[in-house]
């Protein structure tokens, strides 16, 4: 299996790492200061604000600033909780994310069930600053923590019969009020071609902004595939299965004319309801042009060589 290596400088530029080091240092100084201050005035609050305020905002490799922690955690599509984007932040707080087990099986030599905590210890977190382009034509820049999915696959060893990967979210209507709505094909499922899943840009996300992944953002573990529309990056995964046939995803099930298997960000292929040629970056007031493969064409275009992307949308 050929995977496209991308220079690590394109994932997180060095100056951002350095500025982040400075930022963490400053945060430590501030929190130490606040601890001293707290011990002086007898306040019981020892911890600094739980929201990291970036005074020197980091940027993605195209030079665009990160979205704030508040934006990222306060505006999410999570139909298991609700159909609007604000209430998941509140409703998700009760989700029991520990312990969380993830089963990896199907066409593999070493099927295995992992605890997410063990996975995090086994595969050190890397920070990846990725653009997330929602199919609804808005986008954000998000500093994820996670590890490449291909590292996990090295261990479970897909057999030669494995051609696709099927992902599944937890099904538990007691925790997910939205799963009471029978008009949706629960549980949420997604799929990737094996070479897409093996690509270095594809990660299992376990955190953002240096913290554990908040439940409304798909915690404790989710997929992040930055060149595809956001809905491909399935949240709260409990099952990864290697299969021979192309799986059907949640959104394909609902409306195949609008949501294809590939769902690559493509400004040329509109949704039946709206154009995908431009998008609103959250925090900005003017639309910006949507980039082919969400700006990751150099790394991923080769995966689709010779394919008609208006048919395979």
């Amino acid at each position, binding site marked *: 299996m050929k995977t496209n290596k991308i220079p690590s400088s394109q994932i997180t530029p060095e100056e951002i790492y350095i500025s982040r080091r400075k930022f963490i240092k400053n945060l430590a100084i501030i929190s130490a200061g606040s601890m001293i201050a707290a011990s002086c005035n007898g306040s019981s609050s020892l911890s600094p604000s739980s929201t990291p305020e970036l005074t020197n905002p980091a940027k993605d490799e195209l030079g665009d600033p990160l979205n704030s922690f508040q934006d990222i955690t306060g*505006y999410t599509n999570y139909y298991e909780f609700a159909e609007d984007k604000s209430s998941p932040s509140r409703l998700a707080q009760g989700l029991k994310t520990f312990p969380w087990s993830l089963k990896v099986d199907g066409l593999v030599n070493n099927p295995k069930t992992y605890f997410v905590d063990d996975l995090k210890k086994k595969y050190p977190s890397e920070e990846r600053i990725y653009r997330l382009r929602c199919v609804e034509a808005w986008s954000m820049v998000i500093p994820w923590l996670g590890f490449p999915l291909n590292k996990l696959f090295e261990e479970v060893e897909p057999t030669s019969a494995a051609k696709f990967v099927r992902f599944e979210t937890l099904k538990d209507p007691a925790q997910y009020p939205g799963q009471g709505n029978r008009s949706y094909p629960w549980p949420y499922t997604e799929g990737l071609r094996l070479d897409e899943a093996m690509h270095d840009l594809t990660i299992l996300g376990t955190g953002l902004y240096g913290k554990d992944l908040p439940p409304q953002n798909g915690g404790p573990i989710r997929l992040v595939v930055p060149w595809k529309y956001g809905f491909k990056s399935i949240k709260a995964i409990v099952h990864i299965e290697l299969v021979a046939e192309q799986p059907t995803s949640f*959104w394909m099930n609902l409306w195949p004319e609008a949501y294809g298997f590939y769902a690559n960000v493509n400004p040329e292929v509109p949704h039946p*309801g709206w*154009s995908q*040629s431009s998008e*609103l970056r959250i925090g900005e007031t003017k639309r910006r042009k949507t980039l082919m493969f969400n700006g990751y064409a150099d790394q991923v275009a080769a995966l689709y060589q010779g394919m008609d992307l208006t048919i395979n949308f």
Partner: protein
Amino acid sequence: MKIHLTRIQLLCHFLCLLPLFFLIYEAILNQLTVNPVREIAIRTGRTAITILLFSLLCTPLNNLLGLNSILLIRRTSGLYAAFYALLHFVNFIGFDYSFAWSEIWGVIRHQPSLIIGLTAFILLIPLAVTSVQIFQKWLNKWWKRLNRLIYIIMLLEILHFFLAVRADLLLPKIYLFLYFLLMVLRIPYFSRWKFNFPRITEINNFFNKMLF
């Protein structure tokens, strides 16, 4: 000129202005999510369709139940529906696409759902303009014919709604069902049906009361 206002008219103005009030209130408090343009689009669109559907229900409700007070708010509610459609349209071209005309036209041209929505909006304009009594008299029987366009407009708006949602089709389906119910009630056989409930007459009298 003396202005008369009945209870039902006051209620109509109140209910139709409520969504606008909430929109402005939440906008001032910065509560329209981090993507206010989308929130405004969803809310003004839903409100426009809901009020328009209500205005179409007025005539059959009067026919069936003798609820003639409701006829007093048929035109008002229709105008509110047009007003919310205008807000929806202005939000799209102004807040969403920053009046970039060539881009707007480029986007609409290739997008059947937007062509449908725009057509519905354009057709609403002559109806709103000719809703004043002078036009009603001047156009005479043509006024009634012109206003039958509303059935096409309603259908276009529901279709636009179906295409504009992500996949949550419940509300568009309910609206389509109500639309068909409404059309069935227009069939002469059904439109001759009459129900007499004393309670309805009471409600009707209550709503017909002049406030001043």
